[in-house]
């Protein structure tokens, strides 16, 4: 297995190329995905490699983009439908949560919908309230959907391949702020399984469950804390639906403390679900209340100074862990 360093967006792009090469039923549609290669260059080179039958620019029509994918998937194709910015999920929501998610169940198992939706989420680019959201909790709340949030180049490739091979509707949320982050990526095609968390750093004093872009921030915080002799375990769930509760609970039973970090707003965020599950499964092991660090209950602001205050970072993660450890 040859592994080399490559960026998050290049790794994703390689996964797309290999998944399309592997299966002629895979096609890609979306706004500016063909000629332009996607606004983040996620889809560079696909039009040249696979032609305009399999890689198509659409009108600006999110409901039709996703609905076309649902109908084609029900007929056995494997569509990849791009929604550019995660905020646009709202425009296509009926097709995502009333149609794609429910067809299998409400039709008594008669239909499978192997649809992959790709999109880009997260703040940090002064893109303001309609181009910066993290809405994974919305999607994870709907039975029938699967939601992946790759936080490393390795997972950006492995999760898009896993999503395309999956027979269910999946949403892969790329992190805009991580597109240029580099990491090791194997050359050959591989799939990251949905519902398997990664222990990104082992530790004994506290567990940080870090969603998406909060992973590198949590790892930075863990490094700082280690200098003071505080040993932190960092877990990246990688998918929030399904959620690998077992890995999280096992860790918390060992460290006795848990902090959940995400950049979506705290109220009703995925951290609330993780906290509830930890208390159900590991209550007797806890030395402190399960803590959450997330965005305040406001739309994402434009001003850099406000946006920096909005999104959690390594310094605040470090502070939260220290506060949790002070309590005994």
């Amino acid at each position, binding site marked *: 297995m040859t592994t080399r360093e490559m960026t998050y967006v290049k790794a994703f792009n390689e996964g797309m190329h290999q998944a399309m090469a592997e299966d002629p039923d895979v096609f890609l549609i979306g706004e500016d995905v063909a000629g332009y290669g996607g606004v983040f260059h996620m889809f560079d080179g696909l039009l040249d490699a696979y032609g305009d039958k399999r890689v198509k620019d659409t009108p600006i029509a999110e409901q039709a983009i996703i609905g076309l994918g649902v109908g084609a998937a029900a007929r056995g*194709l494997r569509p990849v439908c791009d929604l550019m910015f995660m905020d646009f999920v709202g425009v296509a929501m009926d097709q995502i949560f009333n149609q794609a998610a429910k067809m299998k169940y409400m039709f*008594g198992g008669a239909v499978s919908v192997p649809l992959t939706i790709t999109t880009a989420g997260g703040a940090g680019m002064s893109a303001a309230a309609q181009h910066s959201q993290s809405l994974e909790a919305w999607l994870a709340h709907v039975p029938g959907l699967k939601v992946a949030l790759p936080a490393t180049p390795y997972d950006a490739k492995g999760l898009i391949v896993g999503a395309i091979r999956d027979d269910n509707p999946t949403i892969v949320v790329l992190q805009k702020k991580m597109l240029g982050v580099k990491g090791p990526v194997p050359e050959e095609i591989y799939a990251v399984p949905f519902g398997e968390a990664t222990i990104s750093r082992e530790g004994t004093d506290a567990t940080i469950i870090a969603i998406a872009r909060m992973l590198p921030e949590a790892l930075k915080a863990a490094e700082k804390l280690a200098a003071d002799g505080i040993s932190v375990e960092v877990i990246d769930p990688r998918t929030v639906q399904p959620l690998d509760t077992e890995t999280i609970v096992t860790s918390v039973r060992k460290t006795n403390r848990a902090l959940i970090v995400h950049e979506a707003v705290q109220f009703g965020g995925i951290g609330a679900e993780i906290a509830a599950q930890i208390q159900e499964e590991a209550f007797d092991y806890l030395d402190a209340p399960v803590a959450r660090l997330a965005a305040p209950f406001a739309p994402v602001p434009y001003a850099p100074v406000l946006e920096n205050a909005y999104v959690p970072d390594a310094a605040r993660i470090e502070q939260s862990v220290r506060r949790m450890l002070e309590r005994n």
Partner: protein
Amino acid sequence: MATPTEAEVTPATRELVLDLHRRMVRIRRFEESSGKLVETGEMPGFLHLYVGQEAVASGVMSVLTDADQITSTHRGHGHAIAKGAEFRPMFAELYAKTTGYCKGRGGSMHIVDMNRGMLGANAIVGGGIPIAIGAGFASQYRGDGTVAVSFFGDGATNIGAFHESVNMAAVWDLPVIFVIENNGYAEFTSQERHMKLTDIAERASSYGIPGVIVDGMDALAVRQVALEAVDRAKRGEGPTLIEAKTYRFFDHQGIKGMRIPYRDPAEVEAWKSRDAIRLIEAIGVERGLASAEEFERIWAEVEDEINDGIEFARNSPDPDPADILDDVYTV
């Protein structure tokens, strides 16, 4: 059933008249029987009955094969039946039994029959339209010569998904036929109160595709325009928008009278006097294609099929709550 490859004004043959008649009578009797069974409380849920509109589904479906795909609506029993769905699993679904089309998971508004190209009824108004263009995209992608037909009402042409889907199908020349069943009402709101247009087919011009108006009470006329639209789609020339002017004889929901006086009784009676089933019986007898006795025999045969379907549903097992998580995901 062979699909003609060239549109021609089809002569009303004996076989055709009897075929369309049987499709319509099957719908009519299924709907009337189901309405009564819900009213007496024997079946759960609620029903949006297709009675009055039978000529639309029957006329269109008579030119499709099982390989052609359709999407349907909350008022979807007629589409399923006209596409060939069986009464046993249909009644069983309405009775919420495991032997139903959806194993009791979907009910009236979600009848599906993948073996017959029935991609599912849909309880979101207009929700099936984007799905139909996906089915048509799959036909084009595979080059398999099939088409997709989306049925929806006048009300659904006001939602954004209609606009997005017809435009995309037009731009990509997808083999899709959009069938508006204009029964004059979006639930309880009349057409003149929900749009400025009288003829919704005019909307086709804004997508650069043909818009065709047809008498939705005349199954032979509906069949003819469907035939032309299917041929056009198969030639790679893209979608057609068909507006079938029709009427529902019952209320928006159920078989009881109107809960609010939103329709003029004279209007209802005028449409009932143009009943699609009586119309085709008259054509058959006048032209010497079939006798009144033959039509009577179809009514009687359908009655036996209804009774068999209800009996089957009554005797079928309930779902087991232990299986409640089955089929949320494909594993």
